């Protein structure tokens, strides 16, 4: 029993050699070859930036686009702690201002707008038709964390219509809220119009809930110490071209 569990010297040597080769291959792969740019984008932009990344890679086959997609709050935190990015696109001006104020980005440009939508899980589409139904019934609601752009909007909206969010679950980004409503893990969610548009599920939308009056704008900026400034600017330029504009409107965003 004890003998069995001790690997022989030979197998240890083979293991060591394999690990060494793997590390060498890995380091080599990272260091050489094509260029890459790193794009940090807010979760709500997932589909748009994925689409534009493909477009970019067909135009510039030697450049890889690395996407880091997360809630705007998470991205700001990562950048404050020194994360390496070339291009940053967030879901609110105030989040971008935090980065600008400490000199991480310069001259943000607005590329799109988005507004809120109150959505209902596929199972409850028939039962819940208005925000009054939501207020009356003890439903499980999901919203974004308060520190995120969609959370800030959702709380402002909820207080304006007297919606109680005290037992709502706080998700770290808007796609997590969407997924919970889609899977019927919660009854109601507050997301963006673009999320409603991109969802493949038969979600309910409380169109008369006036949530669309709450909107946010999406600023884009190249980072101050980007080592691929030209490439990042080329990527940014896509948003102003027809390919970017049609992607934005196709996925439910409004143009500024």
């Amino acid at each position, binding site marked *: 029993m004890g003998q069995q569990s001790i690997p022989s010297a030979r197998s240890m040597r083979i293991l060591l050699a394999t690990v060494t080769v793997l590390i060498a291959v890995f380091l080599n792969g990272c260091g050489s070859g094509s260029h890459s740019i790193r794009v940090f984008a807010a979760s709500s932009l997932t589909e748009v930036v994925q689409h534009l990344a493909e477009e970019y890679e067909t135009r510039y086959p030697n450049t890889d686009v690395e996407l880091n997609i997360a809630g705007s709050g998470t991205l700001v935190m990562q950048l404050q702690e020194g994360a390496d990015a070339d291009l940053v696109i967030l879901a609110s001006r105030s989040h971008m201002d935090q980065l600008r104020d400490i000199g991480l980005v310069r001259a943000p440009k607005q590329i799109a707008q988005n507004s809120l939508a109150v959505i209902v899980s596929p199972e409850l589409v028939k039962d819940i038709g208005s925000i009054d139904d939501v207020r009356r019934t003890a439903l499980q609601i999901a919203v974004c*964390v308060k520190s995120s752009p969609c959370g800030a909007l959702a709380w402002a909206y909820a207080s304006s219509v007297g919606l109680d969010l005290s037992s709502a*679950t706080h998700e770290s980004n808007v796609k997590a809220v969407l997924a919970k409503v889609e899977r*019927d893990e919660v009854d109601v969610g507050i997301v963006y119009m673009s999320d409603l548009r991109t969802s493949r599920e038969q979600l309910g939308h409380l169109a008369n809930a006036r949530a669309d009056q709450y909107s946010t704008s999406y600023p884009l900026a190249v980072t101050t110490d980007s080592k691929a400034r030209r490439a990042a600017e080329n990527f940014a330029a896509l948003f102003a071209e027809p390919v970017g504009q049609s992607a934005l409107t196709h996925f439910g965003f409004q143009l500024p």
Partner: protein
Amino acid sequence: MTPQLPRLLRLAAFVAVAVVAAPLFSLLWRIPWSELPRLLSTEVVVDALFLSLVTSLVAALLALLIGIPIAFQLSRMTGISASTLRAVATLPMVLPPVVGGAALLFAFGRRGLIGETLDNAAGLVLPYTPAGVVIANAFVATPFVVLTVESGLRALDPRYELAAASLGASPLRSTLRVVLPMIRSSIVAGAFLAWARALGEFGATITFAGNVPGRTQTLPLAVFVAMEADRDAALAMSLVLVFISLIVLVCLRDRWWPAK
């Protein structure tokens, strides 16, 4: 006299300790010490701390309740069946907690295998409730009880039980009166490890029980949220978690690894 270690090994150990301690030291270095009382007395923190303490304690008890019978069964098994059962019972220990949370969702979620029945039959919904947090915590904590109690049982000389039986004690009586008292320190160690693991649980909790402040937002979840919203509050809460975990491990030293 203790045999001397090679100098190279001592050097390697020194470097290794530095590597392990560096993040911890960096955390302490960032703590806004003078702000601590204010940061730790906000409603969010107090709620999260209270919820964490209650749910982790209940989860540790639940882990004992589930883990001890498994350990007893395992201690009498050998070969492939023992390895298989042990692997299944301790899987949550190495499984990514988020996978555990997803598995719990598929079992006890509102549309889960068991959860849907519970909901329809008794109106019992576990996600987004403190009970859901307890389930998630117990799920990841039970393996610690299984492993420590099983190793305690295996180290026990079977002659004590045989003697009890020969003196006319039933299996139940000898288990309760002879075996359990003799493995008490293993049970205590298992309970403390389970409690510490439950207290630090994050992935399974946020996946299965959600993140509802005051109901399912435990201290680790509150740290996660505060990392983006209020960094100083996140650091203050992290300090509490580090402090409690260290105390548990220091107290456990002699129980977990038999003292000399």
